[in-house]
């Protein structure tokens, strides 16, 4: 078992990790920037270390400062949380190189999953379905035509050297494809100095479904899936478990594929395998694996009763997986919503400020993971997540009712938050019916954003 843990993060996830460690009798060291001296994670930890100025680059992303804090306080381990350095292979290597335990996978596993091409190859090799497309670069129009047999239409032509949505063309027919391919080549060459292209099937209406895995380096289990189809600008805002879109048979197949991948790469710790699920075709495709604990992990904890962060700490401490697959079962339905310091009526403009009033929801089936307290000054330097409200009930319908009840109990005075968004979504017929996909929310917001005043 680990003895003393450095929590290399801030905000609600630092609080979450400190709680899990203290539950296991592990001493905790919080790190903080000058802007976070009054933060809840600093108040709750056994020891604290100031690691630098507000800018994340000089504090929470400063590997040297973090390692020094761990050494100076006699820590034997480091938990990276999510964001910041959580999926930085060099950080995992540096922690291990300093003789400490990194609570997460090896640098090599992070590297393999962080690279799109190697992750896709690893998934395909483990028998996990990937989005149909070219195996690597497509050499010219003729080679492109042969890939069409696999992808069909519409097909996406992407610059291999591109990123962030640049250099992408979509062709709906062979005529369009023959025109678009050379154009995309020329464009890629002009924009990136590299005309290399690859091709991928366009999944029009897809759900985002992801599988939670736990692994100890040799064995792996899954803790079923989460659906996170309600997204804005590729950021999840509402997550739930289980997904009602899946049949039992497909659910087992999906979850087994995630376990196969975790085993194939000798994964260790908690991880999430993300998929697109195409309702019409009733098929799922691998997108990527996240090698960290995720923001939305509490919905899985709610339906399985497993403390994922505690299991991460046990595995990092050298224990084998304590939970067998047959012991993992789903009970009820859970929903998490992300309360951000943003004004949904004003294009989600960030809204840092002071928490003038705080009333936290409670009662059966309600969990509130947050770093808020009355009088807390929300700093402008980091992301806008203030709190996660998680509700759990027997059915999805009951969970939505409970979500509305808990949102009405919640009061965060002095700030604009995304609470009105979730009250409106919870009342929306499409959300109630679960009839959504990853681009649904952006369309809904065009119609409804103006009504979301705090």
């Amino acid at each position, binding site marked *: 078992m680990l003895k003393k843990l450095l929590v290399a993060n801030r905000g609600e996830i630092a609080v979450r990790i400190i709680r899990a460690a203290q539950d296991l009798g592990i001493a905790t060291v919080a790190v903080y920037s000058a802007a976070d001296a009054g933060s809840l994670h600093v108040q709750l930890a056994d020891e604290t270390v100031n690691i630098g100025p*507000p800018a994340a*680059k000089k504090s929470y992303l400063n590997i040297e400062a973090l390692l020094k804090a761990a050494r100076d306080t006699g820590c034997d381990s480091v938990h990276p949380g999510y964001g910041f350095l959580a999926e930085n292979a060099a950080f995992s290597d540096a922690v291990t190189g300093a003789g400490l335990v990194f609570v997460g996978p090896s640098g090599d596993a992070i590297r393999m999953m962080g690279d799109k091409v190697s992750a896709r190859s690893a998934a395909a090799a483990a028998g996990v379905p990937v989005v149909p497309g070219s195996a690597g670069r497509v050499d010219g129009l003729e080679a492109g035509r042969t890939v069409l047999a696999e992808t069909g239409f519409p097909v996406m032509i992407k610059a291999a050297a591109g990123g962030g949505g640049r250099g992408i063309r979509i062709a709906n027919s062979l005529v369009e494809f023959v025109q678009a391919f050379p154009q995309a080549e020329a464009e890629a060459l002009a924009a990136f100095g590299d005309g290399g292209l690859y091709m991928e099937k366009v999944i029009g209406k897809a759900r985002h479904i992801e599988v939670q895995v736990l692994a100890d380096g040799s064995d792996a289990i899954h803790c079923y899936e989460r659906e996170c189809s309600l997204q804005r600008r590729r950021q999840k805002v509402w997550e739930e478990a289980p997904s009602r879109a899946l049949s039992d048979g497909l659910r087992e197949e999906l979850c087994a594929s995630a376990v196969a991948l975790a085993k194939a790469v000798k994964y260790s710790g908690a991880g999430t395998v993300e998929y697109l699920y195409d309702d019409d075709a009733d098929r799922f495709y691998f997108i990527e694996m996240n090698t960290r604990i995720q923001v939305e992990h509490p919905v899985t904890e709610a339906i399985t009763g497993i403390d994922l962060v505690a299991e991460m700490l046990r595995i990092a401490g050298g224990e084998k997986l304590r939970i067998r697959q047959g012991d993992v079962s789903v009970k009820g339905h859970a929903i998490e919503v992300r309360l951000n310091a943003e004004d949904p009526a004003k294009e989600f403009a960030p809204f840092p400020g002071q928490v003038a009033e705080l009333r936290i929801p409670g009662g059966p089936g309600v969990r509130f993971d947050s770093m808020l307290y009355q009088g807390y000054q929300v700093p*402008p*330097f980091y992301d806008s997540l203030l709190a996660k409200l998680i509700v759990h009930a027997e059915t999805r319908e009951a969970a939505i009712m409970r979500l509305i009840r808990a949102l009405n109990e919640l009061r965060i005075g002095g700030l604009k938050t995304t609470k009105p968004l979730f009250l409106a979504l919870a009342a929306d017929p499409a959300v109630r019916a679960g009839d959504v996909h990853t681009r649904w929310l952006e369309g809904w917001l065009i119609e409804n954003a103006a009504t979301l005043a705090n």
Partner: protein
Amino acid sequence: MAQILSPLPGTFYRSVSPDQPPYKADGDAVAAGDVIGLIEVMKSFHEVRAETAGTNIRFLADNEEPIMAGAPLADLD
């Protein structure tokens, strides 16, 4: 003399990205509406524009400096 104040709390940047030159250098002339820097608030970026023209801008805030809303960013003659 006029002062350009930060409309938001956050981190002040003098250029659009680290590998680009600053929007304005000390001593530059500024037209009304010119972008003089960026404020990063909770990972979103907002342009700061000069409301009036001037012949000589002198920055008071450094690149990457944390600032409060209303803090002076530059003097403008």
